């Protein structure tokens, strides 16, 4: 994906923005670009990228005419266009432009009211949800990028509001990405809280069939399928998922990695970071021996330990907990996990995990065993669909298991004490339905933002 950045200026200045440190050091002017030159460069670069997205800064600040010309050129080049915006300036004219240019709109939105206090502190009267409804009504393809921070998940009450909002979006068939706030001390969740929140959200999404990233990506990663750049082994000097076309016509890397100044893009991607991480012990910031290495590949170098790309991501604990969660969910659903391999290991699933699974669920065989006589893996054939052992293990992984969505009378089944069956039939069938669906989820509607 080529992100087209006519400028890096913004109108809202989110507290946690990853472009903030660059903006502090460099003057960013909205109208300093040459539009014709950018359009020419887009055409020149057409064959090098599978798609383009108008990005920023805040792209709508360049005005309707220029937005239209860029999106229209994208449509000419690719048959569709996309944009990532904070939405503050969206009005009916812009909605018409989006429709005309077959634009996939990515809206950065952290939730209603106080949930967006790190974003819309200057625009308290702006109601993004009205704009969401207007775009949906107009038939604009829309997805959301939500940054999960202290503002919308710092307490259980805030998290409940966030989840309620996700359900509202679900009614409009809107999904997107729940990106962890990173590199912004003071605004991001503590590691422990982030782990708790993401496991809680994972379970919530599973229960309600909400297909949000990073959960869909983690499922894909465990299947060895294409996923978001975070888990694709990013080369910090040639970011594979996001190249950025700047106003001067040069092409650079994802702005998460251009914090001080802009480095131009290395001519070819390499796997140096993967080499380093796979050979460096976990004790010293690497990933050696991690069973989720091939699914995760060290995470985003822009969120590396000590801000040094030669280390793995500092979100490791969060990702690892989610990988464990989905690993077990996949096993439960009899879906082959092809990516759970240790470095240098021959078995796709390490023997320890296999034996663990066997211990958890006696009589259950691992999906890779090739044993056709494993009736317990067929949920419908199992007299006890989820043995208490597995349930208690999932509870350990996801502490929110017992109280997730506890305020919702519509989901009593998630509270084991309220349910005669520890793993209720509704959830079983949901799991069966959801997981395979996720694996084949059409992510086209969020293709404007395939990097985070």
């Amino acid at each position: 994906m080529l992100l087209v950045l006519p400028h890096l200026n913004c109108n809202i200045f989110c507290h946690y923005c990853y472009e903030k440190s660059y903006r502090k050091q460099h003057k960013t002017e909205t109208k300093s670009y040459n539009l014709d030159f950018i359009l020419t460069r887009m055409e020149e670069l057409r064959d090098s990228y599978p798609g383009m997205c108008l990005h920023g800064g805040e792209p709508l600040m360049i005005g309707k005419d220029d937005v239209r010309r860029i999106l229209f050129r994208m449509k000419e080049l690719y048959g569709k266009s996309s944009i990532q915006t904070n939405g503050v300036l969206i009005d009916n004219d812009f909605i018409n432009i989006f429709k005309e240019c077959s634009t996939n709109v990515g809206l950065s939105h952290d939730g209603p009211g106080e949930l967006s206090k790190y974003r819309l502190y200057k625009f308290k009267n702006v109601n993004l949800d009205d704009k969401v409804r207007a775009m949906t009504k107009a038939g604009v393809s829309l997805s959301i990028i939500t940054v999960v921070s202290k503002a919308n998940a710092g307490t259980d009450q805030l998290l409940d509001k966030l989840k309620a909002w996700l359900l509202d979006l679900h009614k409009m068939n809107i999904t997107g990405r729940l990106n962890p706030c990173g590199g912004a001390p003071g605004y991001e969740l503590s590691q422990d809280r982030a782990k708790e929140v993401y496991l809680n959200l994972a379970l919530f999404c599973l229960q309600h069939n909400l297909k949000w990233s990073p959960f869909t990506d983690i499922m894909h990663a465990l299947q060895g399928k294409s996923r978001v750049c975070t888990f694709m082994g990013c080369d910090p000097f040639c970011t594979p998922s996001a190249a950025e076309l700047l106003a001067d016509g040069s092409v650079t890397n994802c702005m998460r990695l251009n914090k001080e100044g802009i480095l131009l893009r290395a001519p070819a991607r390499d796997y140096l970071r993967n080499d380093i991480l796979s050979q460096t012990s976990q004790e010293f910031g690497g990933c050696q021996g991690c069973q989720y290495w091939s699914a995760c590949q060290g995470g985003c170098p822009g969120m590396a330990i000590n801000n040094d790309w030669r280390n793995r991501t500092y979100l490791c604990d969060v990702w690892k907990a989610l990988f464990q969660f989905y690993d077990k969910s996949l096993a439960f659903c009899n879906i082959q996990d092809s990516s759970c391999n240790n470095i240098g290991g021959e078995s796709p699933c390490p023997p320890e995990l296999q034996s663990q699974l066997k211990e958890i669920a006696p009589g259950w065989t691992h999906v890779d065993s090739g044993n056709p006589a494993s009736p317990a893996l067929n949920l419908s054939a199992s007299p006890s669909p989820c043995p208490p052992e597995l349930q208690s293990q999932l509870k350990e992984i996801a502490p929110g298991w017992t109280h997730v969505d506890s305020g919702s009378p519509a989901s009593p089944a998630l509270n084991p004490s309220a349910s005669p069956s520890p793993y209720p039939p509704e959830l079983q069938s949901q799991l069966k339905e959801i997981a395979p669906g996720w694996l084949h989820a059409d992510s086209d509607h969020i293709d404007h933002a395939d990097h985070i």
Partner: protein
Amino acid sequence: MKDFTKIIPKQGQEEWPNKLGLMGALFHQAEYQMVKNKFRQAAIINVDHNNLPAILEQANKDGLLLTPLNKIAITDRFTAITQSPGPGEPFIWRSCITRTRKDGEKFKQADAEHNHRIVGQMLGYPECCIDYFIQTFPIDHCPIWVDLRGSVSGYPECNGMLRYFGPKITAHLSCSPACKATKEIGKVWLKTMQGINKDLADELYRLLASPITWDSYHGVVQIETPYFIGLNNALFILKKPRIINWRAINERQKIKISSKKKLKSKKI
């Protein structure tokens, strides 16, 4: 970590990867010229079947001798340690250029015996830097001052932090960032390079005088200059980063400061 080098220019500095290549070539030309102009007894030169005729022709013209030393495996990257080629693998001849046959033989023998003192002397290295090399190289092949980290001030002539990418003023590893003997020899090297391409040599000097951060960690050295970031393999895999923040000693400023001090003391 395998041998590698990688240059990523900063915005507006796209010409640097090419420029670094030119600077490397300029240095190699100066190596030859330094022997021809009698500033050193010998220079090491790599010869393959492509450049052999041209080198021999030039050497004959200049009255210099080419003496083969040993075969080494071909690499397109900087490496502090040469490898012998495997059976059937392509190779080049590591050779020396001297003005006399006697020097050629002396160099070959010293090289075969790993007599770093004689090799260093014939290559024109200062005695202090030969001592440093003999002491440290067998323990740590890392070409950057092994005991230094943090803020470091030195002479551009001593700055070997970019040698992996081509730019350097002297051929040897200086014993310290402020080695006076290296600075003096470096003046001769720089003058020789200026005689070949003054603009490029001046730019090379400015580059090595600019603020540079050298950061070795997990087997990769990352070197940041005002114009680009360079990456290369480190010979040692460090579990904690070793970072050198390089600033060139400003001679003029030093002179000004010391003369001001003198004035003050006179007034007192």
